[in-house]
């Protein structure tokens, strides 16, 4: 398909601007202006509409396809939350309104949203307080590690290391490194959880934090979790909970109750705000009592008279990690989702997510290698190692699924499983959809033995066949201009 730039015809226009109702002014001195006009496309509004509508049809999405992308929680995104985020009473609100005299009264509805979403998320996770500022999961991680660093600085602790298991998301070690820490990696034991002997050996006085995902990226709940936390706390190392997999735990276990000091959430996963093709998300962070003083400013507070205000009175705060109060429209959608589901609805979400995952696992484990034979939580990891004997890799199975209109699972992650396929069906899928997925996965396994070429040549039904990624990196072309 042509680029919008390739459809450009000199002189074509696509929008009516507000009419100029003031006199034209002398243009700015030439030394401050650009030499040539910005070479944006010259197209009509219909050109733009047709172009982007057709582009949209070249995407798999939750609304068009089953999307069991592991660790990403691609559940159905209810439409009423979009309607709410689009209310002009929210969209037209300037974030600096509250900086004007008495203007907090102009934003009471918005502050109430922030206040209650914090309360709800704190109760869901069992944490003492939350901040809604972080703009994505990885941003929440960075905020969390900065809070931990502030705690240790304040106490005069000399800390250099952060412990992460080798099954962790890549963001964990990347975040800790960016915040100024060195990484200690702990291998996975035979039960699919962090190896306790190795963990104990690596723990020490200089460890600032232990970062865990629970259930972990293999979809396994770490039954040693309390002991892990108690051992860490002996050295005043704080426990970090990566909330990517919270969709397995709602009402079943709260990170705050089992010893975690910091939690980040991915609202676009567990609380069903759309993934947007890769953002915007939201990554609120919750903390235990130890870290409350260091939370970012401003903080929404409720006055005695029931009104809300923004407070910057936090002398030990790490400061500002976002310009305002987080991705407000995303927070709104998550709040509306939680309000609609309520207590029972949230618990049901986790229960059905775990049911769907175990069902798929039960129907696939005879044809695919299962690295750890255990009950899974909301997702599971299988390996294409048996298929590899016929020259078929995880990526080939992924591409075959595309030809069958199913978005592939996450592949080659976690790194510790060879030829990994990480499947997260989510709770919003029907048994019929899961049965079809299982059928296609079994068909792929059979084709690996009988006719591997079909898998290797897939996909054939898409606008493009397999793309040369090495060429893209070697001959970098990332702009038409």
């Amino acid at each position, binding site marked *: 398909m042509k680029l919008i730039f390739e459809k450009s015809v000199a002189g074509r226009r696509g929008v009516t601007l507000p009419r100029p109702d003031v006199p034209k002014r002398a243009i700015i001195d030439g030394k401050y202006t650009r030499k040539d006009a910005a070479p944006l496309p010259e197209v009509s509004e219909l050109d733009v509409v047709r172009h982007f509508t057709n582009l949209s*049809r070249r995407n798999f999405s939750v609304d068009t396809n089953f999307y069991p992308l592991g660790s990403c929680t691609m559940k159905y995104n209810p439409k009423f939350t979009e309607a709410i985020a689009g209310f002009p009473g*929210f969209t037209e609100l300037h974030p600096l309104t509250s900086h004007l005299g008495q203007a907090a009264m102009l934003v009471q509805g918005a502050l109430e949203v922030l206040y209650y979403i914090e309360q709800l998320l704190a109760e869901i996770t069992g944490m003492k307080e939350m901040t809604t500022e972080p703009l994505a999961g990885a941003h929440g*991680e960075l905020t969390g590690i900065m809070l931990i660093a502030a705690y240790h600085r304040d106490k005069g602790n000399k800390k250099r290391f952060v412990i992460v298991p080798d099954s962790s998301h*890549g963001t964990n070690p990347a975040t800790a490194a960016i915040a*100024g820490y060195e990484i200690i990696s702990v291998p996975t034991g035979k039960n699919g959880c962090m190896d306790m002997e190795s963990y104990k050996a690596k723990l020490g006085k200089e460890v600032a934090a232990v970062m865990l995902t629970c259930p972990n990226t293999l979809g396994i709940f770490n039954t040693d979790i309390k002991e892990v936390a108690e051992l860490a706390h002996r050295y005043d190392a704080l426990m970090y909970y990566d909330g990517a997999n919270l969709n397995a735990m709602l009402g079943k276990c709260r990170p705050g109750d089992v010893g975690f000091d910091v939690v980040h959430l991915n609202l676009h996963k567990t609380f069903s705000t759309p993934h*947007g*093709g890769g953002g915007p998300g939201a990554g609120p962070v919750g903390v235990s009592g130890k870290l409350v003083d260091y939370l*970012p400013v401003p903080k929404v507070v409720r006055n005695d008279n029931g009104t809300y205000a923004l407070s910057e009175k936090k002398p030990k705060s790490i400061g500002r990690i976002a310009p305002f109060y987080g991705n407000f429209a995303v927070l709104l959608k998550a709040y509306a989702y939680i309000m609609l589901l309520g207590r029972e609805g949230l618990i049901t979400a986790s229960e059905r997510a775990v049911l769907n995952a175990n069902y798929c696992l039960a129907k696939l484990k005879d044809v695919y290698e299962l690295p750890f034979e255990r009950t899974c939580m909301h997702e599971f990891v299988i390996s294409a190692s048996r298929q590899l004997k016929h020259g078929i890799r995880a990526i080939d199975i992924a591409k075959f699924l595309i030809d069958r209109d199913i978005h592939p699972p996450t592949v080659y992650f976690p790194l510790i499983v060879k030829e990994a396929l990480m499947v997260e069906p989510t709770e919003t899928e029907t048994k019929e959809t899961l049965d079809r997925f299982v059928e296609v996965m079994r068909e792929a396994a059979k084709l690996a033995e009988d006719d591997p070429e079909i898998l290797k040549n897939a996909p054939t039904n898409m606008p*493009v*066949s397999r793309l040369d990624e090495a060429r893209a990196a070697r001959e970098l072309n990332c702009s038409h201009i």
Partner: protein
Amino acid sequence: MSNYYTPHTEDDIKSMLDTIGVGSIEELFKDIKGELRPKSFNIPEGKSELEVLTHFNRLAFNNCAGIVKFLGAGFYDHYIPSVVDMLSGRSEFYTAYTPYQPECSQGTLQAIYEYQSAICALTGMEVANASLYEGGTALYEAAMLSSRLKNRNKIVVDSGVNPIYRQMLHTYTQNLSMDFVEISVSHGRSTRSDMLKYIDDKTACVILQNPNFFGAIDDHSDIIDKAHSHGALAVESVYPISLGLLKTPAEMGADIVTGEGQSMGMPLSFGGPYLGFMAVKKELARKIPGRIAGATLDTKGKRGFVLTLQTREQHIRREKATSNICSNEALCALRAVIYLSVLGKEGIRELARLNHDKAEYAKEKIAKIKGVEVKRSSPTFNEFTVLLPKNAFNVTEGLIKNNFLAGLPLGRYYKGMDNYLLVAVTEKRTKQEIDGFAEALGKAL
């Protein structure tokens, strides 16, 4: 109320449990022992969709969002053509995720490639990434990129850079040994002599903003040349709509360009989601943070798009990654490229011109008010500084009653500037609103 987004019937559940070989769903949670179960889970009971909509309608009504805005300070009340909402609202875009599987994500990938191209067109730079969270974190990433690349830790920052972003820079670097030198502004412009004096061989980069926080337009070529002569990089934070008219950061020689893209089709929405953009010279392409879409060929020689240079990223490099950034703000980038496409080459120039002309008109009207001084030491784009005879914060309070958000009182961020007000005028402000505002301001003093 139950969860109707889960479609399981009683029969489904029974047959699925049979397949798994357990007697109940609860058995699947057996690894979570009693001592690990929640101490409480006090979430209110569920509500119907209508009840929730009614609740949020009330909350939205409790905001005075429709007030006439002369408030900007980096975040602007621009008109968003309807086509932006309609097209970005296609759920094939917004319910997809990061395009890890390119063959079934060509829509998102091509849109990102086009967005990157549009950012290059606006800024004059050669390479743009797929977007970052927002303007402040983009600036922080630029500072870190410079420091990493130059292996230096001194960063010279102009105080004309948005003070909120400067606060963020400090927050992010508390645990790192960064040396920030902030150069104060004089008469609303960069203090040239100090800027030039403090840039030295230890400097990783100099951080500038155009137009600066006070709205002043500048040509930073001399400062950028000075930075280059010491082997330092120049980072320029820009306001994309102004680039319809203004000299591009590329023309000034900047190495890294960042900015807040909210003005390109994002509603104000009380602070987000917004759009951080970053564009660089070609030689820095392999060092920048965030996702990048690149063009390539498929097995049959047909053009297609992929996420490229992924070996910089956290999911492969882990602790050695160039940033911990995982997602981008893809949907916001999509909105921006739709917005820029309907505006086009002529439209962006006309829009910039309209903003400038309306702001100049507002300046003239306000300058006529007795006791008020409009600062004119530099040309401005669509925002300017006004010195009032009274405390600006108190004046804004009075004007709310006239349905105006009068601007940002500067005292909160700049010492000794309690009587200064920062006023923004976008294309949405009509002559009638500007006249009414000037009149109300006159009466409020």
